């Protein structure tokens, strides 16, 4: 853990070397991402609701997903940009070091400009919560925290899967956008608005539904089952196969090369 935080500190130090660029990029990140929230607001100006969900409910849903995604961009940038490690041959260097590989990949990159998105997601979440008249109790607080945590975990898992793909080929890597960006765009709305096949896929294959649908229903008081509120815990299990797949990919890499 010490190595990880030290690496992050070094990345930050490196980024701050280019001060003007850092500030400009930070500001533009904030502006760019408000446009995404703006789209939701624009659509709700024309339509009344989406399958019974109001604008602030959707904004809450989106901000949680956005939070998880951006946290990964900041703190797991090395996994996100794993293809660069492979293409540049820097992954070989990691294999020469006596440490866990995933840890080293995490240490290999960081992008603190993206923390603008994290901050923004938190702001939007707070605004949405203030408008929603939630009946707060301890279970709801736990559910909200679990949603935030599972949002981070699910994207970490997906990034890890995409990284595993790089062990086979870096060609056509764009397909991961379906699961990362695509997943993010889709999960900005409660999964329930989509057709059955989608819901099943994103419940059991990539469990977005446990991040921001079932717990959301509980959190908003639409469903009273406590299991719904605790369902984000299932996402943690999902991480396991992702790690296994990554290790399988690594094995292949060392037998096939790049």
């Amino acid at each position, binding site marked *: 853990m010490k190595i990880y935080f*030290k690496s992050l500190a*070094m990345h930050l130090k*490196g*980024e701050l070397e280019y001060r003007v660029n850092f500030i400009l990029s930070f500001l533009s990140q904030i502006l760019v991402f408000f446009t995404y929230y703006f789209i939701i607001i624009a659509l709700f100006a024309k339509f009344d609701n989406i399958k019974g969900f109001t604008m602030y409910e959707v904004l809450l849903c989106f901000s949680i997903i956005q939070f998880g995604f951006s946290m990964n961009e900041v703190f797991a940038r090395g996994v996100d940009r794993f293809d660069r490690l492979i293409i*540049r041959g820097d992954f070989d260097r990691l294999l*020469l*070091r*006596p440490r866990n590989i995933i840890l080293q990949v995490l240490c290999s990159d960081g992008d603190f400009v993206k923390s603008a998105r994290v901050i923004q997601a938190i702001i939007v979440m707070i605004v949405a919560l203030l408008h929603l008249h939630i009946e707060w109790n301890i279970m709801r607080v736990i559910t909200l925290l679990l949603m935030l945590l599972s949002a981070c975990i699910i994207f970490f898992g997906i990034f890890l899967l995409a990284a595993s793909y790089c062990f086979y080929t870096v060609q056509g890597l764009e397909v991961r956008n379906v699961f990362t960006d695509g997943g993010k765009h889709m999960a900005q709305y409660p999964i329930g608005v989509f057709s059955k096949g989608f819901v099943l896929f994103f419940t059991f294959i990539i469990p977005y539904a446990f991040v921001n649908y079932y717990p959301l229903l509980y959190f908003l008081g639409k469903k009273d089952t406590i299991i719904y509120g605790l369902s984000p815990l299932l996402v943690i299990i999902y991480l396991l196969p992702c790690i296994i797949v990554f290790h399988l990919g690594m094995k292949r890499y*060392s*037998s096939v090369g790049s």
Partner: protein
Amino acid sequence: MSFIEVKQISKTFRVAKKKSGLKEAFKSFLKREYLDIKAVDDISFSIEKGEIVGYIGPNGAGKSTTIKILSGILNPDSGECKIAGMTPWKERVKYVKKIGVVFGQKSQLWWDIPAEDTFDLLRDIYEIPEEEYLSTKNDLIEKLNLKDIINIPVRQLSLGQRMRCEIAASLLHSPEILFLDEPTIGLDAVSKQLVRDFIKKLNKEKQTTIILTTHDMSDITTLAKRIILIGKGKVLYDGSLKKLKNMYETETYISIKTKDSLNIKKKGIISKKKNKEGYDLVINTKLISISELLTVLSHRISIEDIEILEEPIDKMIVRLYEDYQI
């Protein structure tokens, strides 16, 4: 058993075929053909502790594949390899603590921050005890003359300065084996000399085993007593540089300053050319030794001055590659 034992290692890669033209582009959009390339083909050798071995061969001969296998990055399709009692690709974490690798064309230093920060991070990664770390670091700083450069962001360093920091970074954990993959590439003469001197000293003082790949033959002549020549994935020669020289260095250039005219025909003289001040001769030293020739010459003409040039090693290597058709 030797310190490094490599037995019959082979490795094959698959590469996609590429063709040009619009029609072919559409075709390969749908289906792609592959070629199998044997990068390393049944290679065996052994190296003792404390040796410096030059691993040479033309581009694409299989040098870096071998280095990758020896350092545990790749595992071979077949064959065995034991280094310091371990199989590199099987006991990765334990093994890599014992080796250091310098890639001349790739950097392990963090670009935007001073090298010393990278060193500190490596200390944590390799779990080097503080005292040992400080003494190794100070030793390296002194020997590689890093004092004034480790506090400057790496991107502002010259190539030579950076390479010295790279080498230091690879040695912080005092490895028993050091792999150097083209460590002098792109360096100026002074930096090259500094790097070579350091490597020599390291080998002498710490008995570090060193495996060196390079295209710069003067690296080899100054550092390695033994070379392994590889071409098309096979070992073509393994032995001392001197022996190879004796085998191959058959042409010698002799330039004679004389006022007399020379008429000589003898076995072993490959060519004779007149110039302004005398003659240029090329001889085959296998057929006629230099002293033999000089005796003959001194009987016939009066020699004012004489200059003997050995065939440059680069040229020798070119002939070597040609002979092996690699």
